[in-house]
């Protein structure tokens, strides 16, 4: 074997037919060795014809595997897991069995048509941005969603959804440098998360299992913290300043002892949308104004860190797609979904702009 073809002796000595056979053996033995099902020696013994060529390549593959080994960071993995689980929880009600879909689809279509005809404005409002004239209507729709939830834990989940919606909107407004809405959205976020925590406590007091909802609340807090950090670093100057001011005020309030949520029992302490429902252990809605807001319509895409429009995508949409549109621009697989884009459409990108109906200060910013 000459030095030039030293590393391809199979091809040099035996021609293309042998190369095929060698490649078959190499691939078979590679899988066995890497899976720990056989040692290099066992493989080369059973393929003695090519043993001299196989052995170094298999040994190199094992060394390569070691050299490429990576240890994933535990903390970031866990945080990401929490966020994903929270998102999975939030979309769970949308999942139905195939049978259920078959049964319910015609009914849903009929109902949808009715809703479209009779309440088109309300539907549009459900995704309204804070700078839209429909935003106050959206707030009322969200309260209605909370009221419709039967259990305190469900209500807590709905409130977490609203809190995440507020964060989505915040991301969008900061990205568009619309500083006027930042304080309100942070306030909305706090109020909804306070409400969620209160409902969760009430649920726990009633003996309901609240482990999941507690995890959801924590994941939302984590998301808030990560988003604020990221936005403060990357937002346009004016928006970043407003954000810092709002957060600074919140910190002062927290330090003054005013930031803690105050869930309490009694009919007088219910969120606005629930007043009169008579549920025990519900909490006070700190909102003295419009009676609730947030962003159920915007909760379809919680921030996953990577979707931070400033940090990862670099393609924040002025139309308001706070999730960006980077996504998977290539076909994913023959058997997988064909959709290219893993970011959902933003439903409120074309809303007309208007001043918010009120800046409705809610309770104090929530301590994190």
């Amino acid at each position, binding site marked *: 074997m000459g030095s030039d073809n030293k*590393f391809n002796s199979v091809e040099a000595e035996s021609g293309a037919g042998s190369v095929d056979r*060698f*490649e*078959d053996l*190499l*691939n078979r033995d*590679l*899988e066995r060795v*890497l*899976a720990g099902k056989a040692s290099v020696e066992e493989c080369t013994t059973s393929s003695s014809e090519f043993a001299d060529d196989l052995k*170094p*390549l298999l040994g*190199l*593959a094992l*060394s*390569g*595997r070691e*050299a*490429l*080994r*990576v240890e*994933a*960071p535990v903390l970031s*993995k866990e945080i*990401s*897991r929490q*966020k*994903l*689980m929270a*998102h*999975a*929880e939030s*979309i*769970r*009600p949308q*999942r*139905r*069995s195939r049978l259920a879909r078959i049964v319910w689809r015609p009914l849903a279509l009929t109902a949808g048509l009715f809703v479209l005809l009779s309440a088109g404005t309300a539907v549009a409002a459900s995704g309204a941005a804070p700078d839209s004239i429909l935003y106050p209507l959206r707030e009322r729709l969200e309260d209605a969603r909370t009221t419709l939830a039967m259990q305190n834990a469900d209500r807590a989940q709905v409130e977490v959804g609203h809190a995440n919606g507020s964060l989505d909107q915040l991301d969008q407004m900061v990205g568009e440098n619309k500083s006027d809405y930042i304080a309100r959205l942070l306030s909305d976020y706090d109020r909804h998360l306070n409400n969620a925590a209160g409902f969760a406590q009430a649920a726990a007091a009633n003996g309901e299992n609240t482990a999941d909802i507690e995890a959801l609340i924590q994941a939302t807090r984590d998301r808030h913290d990560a988003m604020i950090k990221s936005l403060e670093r990357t937002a346009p100057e004016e928006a970043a300043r407003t954000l810092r001011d709002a957060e600074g005020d919140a910190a002062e309030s927290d330090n003054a002892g005013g930031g803690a949520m105050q869930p309490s029992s009694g009919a007088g302490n219910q969120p606005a949308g629930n007043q009169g429902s008579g549920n025990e252990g519900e909490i006070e809605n700190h909102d003295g104004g419009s009676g609730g807001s947030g962003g159920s319509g915007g909760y379809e895409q919680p921030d*996953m*860190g*990577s*979707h*931070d429009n400033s940090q*990862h995508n*670099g*393609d924040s949409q002025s139309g308001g797609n706070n999730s960006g549109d*980077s996504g*998977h*621009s*290539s076909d*994913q*697989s*023959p*058997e*997988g*979904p*064909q*959709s290219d884009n*893993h970011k*959902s459409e933003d439903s409120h990108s074309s809303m007309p702009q208007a001043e918010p109906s009120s800046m409705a200060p809610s309770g104090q910013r929530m301590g994190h």
Partner: protein
Amino acid sequence: MTEKHQLQRLIKRIQRGDVNAFGQLYDQFHDPVYSYVLRQTGSQVDAEDITASVFLYVLEKIDTFTWRGAGFAAWLFRIARNDILDHFRRQGKGAREIALSEEVMKQPSGILVEDQAEAAWDERRLRRKIADLSEDQQQVVLLKLMMNFSNREVGEIIGKSEGAVKALTHRALVSLRKQMEE
């Protein structure tokens, strides 16, 4: 029950809305996906972001996943590969410019004895040589050595035939060996 059947069941549970099942899937596949991404982006932050993005996509699209072809893992890694390519595209860089860059290399911690230091040096050298391979050969090496994927799975992920993957594996290892001997 085989591993494949367990995975099929897990995916069915997720498709029925079982959040805990999704958690199990995440636990099972997070580290491989993260490793695969990190070895190409060279940045832990980017690798964390892209990995999260991959699982978010999986969560949202898993309803449409059907078990055909090379299966779930191939689908998952194809998503990851596309996300990595998008990431490079957004940065205006070719994937090979920073693939397997030194900053993510496993750094030895503490004082090493001579043998360990030599092994660490060899590993680093090997990673450099892997980074010098052609794009396709690199992908094959990463997917086969790190994940022990079959030729069929690798083929679906990188869009090549099984035969092409088989040949690429051979050529990549021969090329690596040659470079390591130099």
